């Protein structure tokens, strides 16, 4: 039963709006895989009503990490939790980032924007273990928006950053970094997580170059485990598309299967 009502926070790190928790939770860590997410109860009162989906950021034998950014009242309450406190968590849920073992010798490029970097650390560590050559592209608004950069570096991972304001690394969007990376050497595969416009742009780049890309989508989730049908997005089938559940059929999809919403 993937439910641990008292997951202990054994380590907390904070950088402004960003927070990292390490949990001691053998029950949930067993079998947890990169790309999956947890459904976290952020309070023991009826406010907020629903759990919040948060990706797995890292895993060790009996422990898991999450890395999140305050986006509203739920994540603000979560950020108030302290080391030693416990959380009620369900999961892990969802389909993992499948490591493309065929492509192993040529580099796998991981593209993360803002909090979207969260699941890519876990994936990078796994790909690394599998012997894949990994390059991480990490974009933020400014220098202070890249809190886990050093963590990748310490783990010996090849990481390049961009900031919208140019205060650190490449000046511009992370998709710009991706374009120059592709010019340098075409990646075998892309793994992507970030804000919608960034993911959409990455999907376009991947499509133009015919680079396979796996994208982790976000969506408003009622349950996280397939019961409410609230989290759907349009996913391509043989012909046409259909509403598929992000929590169960995703959150990771092949980029060319995603039908992006047209919004003003």
């Amino acid at each position, binding site marked *: 039963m993937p439910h641990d009502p008292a997951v202990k926070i054994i380590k907390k790190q904070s950088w402004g709006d960003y927070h990292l928790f390490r949990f001691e939770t053998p029950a949930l860590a067993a079998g947890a895989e990169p790309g999956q997410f947890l459904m976290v109860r952020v309070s023991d009162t009826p*406010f907020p009503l*629903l759990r919040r989906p948060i990706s797995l950021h890292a895993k060790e034998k009996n422990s898991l990490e999450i890395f999140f950014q305050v986006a509203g009242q739920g994540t603000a309450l979560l950020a108030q939790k302290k080391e030693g406190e416990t959380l009620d968590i369900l999961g892990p849920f969802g389909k993992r980032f499948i490591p493309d073992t065929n492509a192993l010798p040529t580099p796998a490029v991981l593209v993360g924007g803002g909090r979207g970097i969260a699941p890519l650390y876990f994936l990078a560590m796994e790909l690394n273990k599998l012997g894949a050559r990994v390059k991480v592209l990490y974009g933020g608004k400014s220098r202070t928006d890249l809190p886990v950069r050093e963590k990748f570096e310490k783990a010996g991972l090849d990481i390049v950053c961009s900031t919208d304001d140019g205060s650190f690394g490449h000046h511009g969007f992370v998709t710009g970094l991706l374009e120059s990376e592709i010019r340098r050497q075409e990646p075998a595969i892309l793994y992507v997580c970030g804000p919608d416009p960034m993911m959409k742009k990455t999907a376009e780049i991947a499509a133009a170059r015919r680079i396979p890309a796996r994208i982790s989508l976000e969506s*408003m989730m*009622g349950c996280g*485990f397939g019961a*409410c*049908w609230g*989290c*759907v997005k349009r996913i391509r089938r043989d012909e046409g598309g259909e509403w598929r559940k992000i929590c169960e059929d995703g959150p990771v999809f092949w980029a060319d299967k995603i039908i992006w919403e047209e919004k003003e």
Partner: protein
Amino acid sequence: MTPDLTADLGFLKLRNPVLTASGTFGYGLEFEPFMDLSKIGGIVVKGLYYGPREGNPPPRLVETTGGLINAIGLQGVGVEKFAAEVLPKLRQIDTAVFVNVCGASDDEYLKAIEFLNAQEGIAAYELNISCPNVKKNGLCPALGPDPTYALVKQAKAASRRPVIAKLSPNVTDIVEIAKAAEEAGADGLSLINTLLAMAVDIETRRPKLANIFGGLSGPAIKPIALRMTYQVASAVRVPVIGMGGIMTGADAIEYLIVGARAVQVGTANFIDPAAAARIAGEMKDFCEHKGIARIADLVGTLKTD
């Protein structure tokens, strides 16, 4: 002494009074990893049309204070695929299965019922005459006594199983609708479906739901749902199944006290996927604590003198 938890719906005895509400428990199997389904009174599966249905575009959910607005729009596989792929598995489980039947027209309801009549492993039909997410402005048969009467009457004639009519709260006088359904032969009434609601994103000035309107559920609506359950249970003879915002055994017992013979747990399943079994347990504990030998003895015992 262990209290007797059975709930008598007349046409059916349930192990305990806790069912899961349609649309909040998938087809049941989604919850097997979390809960022993034989610990609850029964499950009401997600609303089914005769054919498969796409549902509404996202966003389909908005969280509000104490509530959830949904506009799923009854995405689903249709009765044929349900009968072929889901029912055989549900038949392996020792719990009562209710099928929530939907239709865009009276005929479609009847077609679904006729098809399901030929399938085994269904305890009763819950006629969803009250979904606010399908037609414009939340229109549905349960908004008027006449369409309610007409549809329930036909459904009863077509059905070889008991028919429960699920009522809408979006009405001036729910007792009038309840009586129309009873007169038309409904074997039971369940209430409430969701309250028609909306929310706006002030940044984009767009509705937060693609469908504009959705249905509000969760603890926010409990006081309204409980009032309606009391009004209906006091006015009809057929068994009443109450729901709306039930999160705990105490909530469920409030419904029994105002006259419901059983309850359904909805939104709570999303937050605690073992909610229904937990609630049944809490109701048992309450009876033990209070020395109540039969939980059915609580039904309709509200003191108003």
